[in-house]
């Protein structure tokens, strides 16, 4: 099946629209959209499912801007970084122009990210072929460290990560192949199904959380899109061409941040838009910086995912989980055995950037108007039904529904405590990898710990880990000190 076959193109288009609806409605995240879609994707041919998934991820992040323009309610955390500016821009100039700028900056940012994805992942995969379990151990540890430290609250990030890793220890252990934490239940021998866990943590927990919160006033009341297609496409394009230096810088920065495991598009958008605010940029340039960087980061997260098997964010963690479910091993092996799949991923990213994002951006703005009129209760009921259906359809095993319910409650408690759910998913993906590389290395060298520092690249990666840890802790402490000083100043002014 080629990239331009009707099935693939239709999957991309529908995946894009689905992502746009979920990205726009506050509380419904790209992760939730993907969690509910995965059970469908398992039944589709890999190239069709993957096309829909990539299109969904790319558009959901952009679509967070639709809610921000229409009602100052960002649909995703990545859009929250510049929600004020894009909303004001919509009021001052026109919602059509604001959405056009967002769609085009997103599309072109994604295009830059895709270019770097091709070069970066091929290069990384070539280097990674030389890696042994020692180097992989340090790489995965880097992903764990950055994932924990990227959380808004480090201790909560650590607990969430450790919980995810602990969930992944259920089943056969990689060292001796003995059952572990199965309590004698044969259903747990294969471990906790990653996709069931995902639906529980994101789907069911979202319904439970919303039931607890009660009806909110978070519906998007879309303003009608007025103005010509030129206001949507041409004027923003002129602005981007005028600001091409800023656009390129933000896109490169976004791709680099996306490349760092655990950072993701939210982080990229905040950093790029804050840089522009510090440089006293206009509303247009802040939006341009934020929108181009967060979508470049989406492509950037796929670089370590494809070439090393390390997820860059929650979405790629889910995709890696899907790969493993389908028996596809990400990493250098993927390029050797499934090069057609890799080429398709590049192609879909390219098409999604050039065609789907601007088109779905334009159509999605109208479609979201319809979706946002859907009563909240109907939406929650739909998610509850889809969670049950999706969790059962994966293995046709009723036992999975117990896991779904328990993880739904766990997800609710974590949400109430303000723990990052994404870190639980990253932990579930990175935990088994970390343990596997640790145990293989240790068994190989009869528990000689120094063997982790004997190979030059391993030593270099160990040093990178150390520098990363020290650097991030220092940054966080500096941030905390500044925040305290700011709060003290605010209190003095109030007094």
């Amino acid at each position: 099946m080629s990239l331009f076959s009707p099935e693939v193109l239709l999957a991309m288009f529908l995946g894009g629209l689905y992502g746009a609806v979920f990205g726009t409605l506050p509380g419904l995240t790209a992760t939730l959209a993907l969690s509910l879609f995965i059970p469908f994707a398992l039944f589709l041919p890999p190239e069709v499912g993957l096309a829909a998934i990539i299109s969904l991820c790319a558009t959901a992040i952009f679509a967070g801007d639709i809610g921000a323009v229409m009602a100052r309610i960002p649909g995703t955390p990545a859009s929250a970084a510049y929600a004020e500016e894009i909303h004001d821009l919509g009021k001052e100039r026109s919602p059509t122009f604001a959405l056009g700028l967002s769609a085009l900056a997103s599309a072109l940012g994604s295009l830059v990210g895709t270019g770097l994805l091709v070069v970066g992942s091929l290069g990384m995969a070539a280097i990674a072929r030389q890696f042994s379990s020692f180097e992989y151990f340090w790489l995965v540890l880097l992903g764990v460290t950055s994932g924990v430290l990227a959380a808004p609250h480090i201790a909560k990030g650590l607990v969430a990560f450790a919980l995810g890793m602990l969930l992944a220890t259920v089943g056969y252990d990689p060292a001796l192949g003995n059952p572990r934490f199965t309590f004698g239940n044969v259903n747990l021998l294969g471990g906790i199904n990653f996709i069931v866990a995902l639906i529980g943590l994101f789907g069911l927990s979202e319904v439970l959380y919303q039931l607890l919160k009660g009806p909110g006033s978070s519906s998007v009341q879309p303003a009608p899109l007025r103005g010509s297609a030129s206001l949507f496409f041409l004027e923003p394009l002129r602005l981007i061409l005028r600001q091409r230096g800023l656009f390129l810088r933000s896109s490169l920065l976004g791709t680099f941040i996306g490349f760092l495991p655990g950072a993701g598009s939210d982080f990229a958008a905040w950093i790029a838009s804050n840089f522009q605010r510090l440089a006293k940029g206009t509303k247009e340039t802040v939006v341009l910086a934020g929108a181009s960087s967060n979508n470049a980061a989406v492509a950037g997260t796929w670089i370590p995912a494809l070439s090393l098997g390390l997820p860059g964010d929650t979405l790629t963690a889910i995709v890696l989980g899907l790969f493993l479910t389908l028996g596809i091993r990400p990493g250098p092996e993927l390029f050797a055995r499934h090069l057609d799949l890799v080429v398709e991923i590049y192609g879909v990213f390219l098409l999604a950037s050039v065609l789907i994002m601007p088109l779905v951006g334009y159509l999605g703005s109208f479609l979201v108007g319809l979706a946002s009129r859907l009563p909240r209760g109907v939406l929650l009921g739909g998610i509850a039904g889809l969670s049950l259906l999706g969790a059962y359809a994966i293995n046709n095993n009723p036992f999975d529904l117990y896991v779904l319910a328990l993880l739904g409650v766990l997800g609710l408690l974590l949400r109430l405590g303000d723990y990052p759910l994404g870190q639980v998913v990253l932990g579930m993906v990175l935990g088994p990898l970390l343990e596997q590389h640790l145990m293989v290395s240790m068994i190989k060298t009869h528990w000689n710990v120094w063997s982790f520092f004997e190979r030059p690249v391993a030593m270099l990666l160990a040093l990178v880990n150390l520098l990363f840890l020290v650097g991030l802790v220092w940054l966080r402490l500096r941030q905390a000190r500044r925040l305290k000083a700011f709060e003290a100043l605010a209190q003095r002014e109030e007094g």
Partner: protein
Amino acid sequence: MGWGNLVGVLAAGLGTLAWVLSLGLPKAEGPGPELFPRVLGTALVLGGLYLLWEKAEGLRIRLEGAWLRVLFLTLLFLLAPALVPRAGIALATAIAAGVGTLLAGEGWYRALLTALGLWLLAYGVFVRLLGVPA
């Protein structure tokens, strides 16, 4: 006490459980299958205790009427493994969707429509088209 503290207690409890259960795992030459769960258990206990000790921020624990709705839906999902083999996945999905809609405060009419929509999806797409056992 806030929810953050309560989850800290839960994390410390799970960490302790991981430690206790890892004592019964088979031994290997040098550390074996018990090593990783113990490392994680330690991280959970330390992190959990720190979060328990930390000043509560954010949501405070208050058990209100809304919790009954949460409890009801959770019970429905816990009963689902017994319901699916008897009623079939399409009907179970419809029941979950309908009850979820009702609990979210919508009327019977909308709940029935949602249930019907999800039944059509489950039966038409998953059972008939994708071959999921009914």
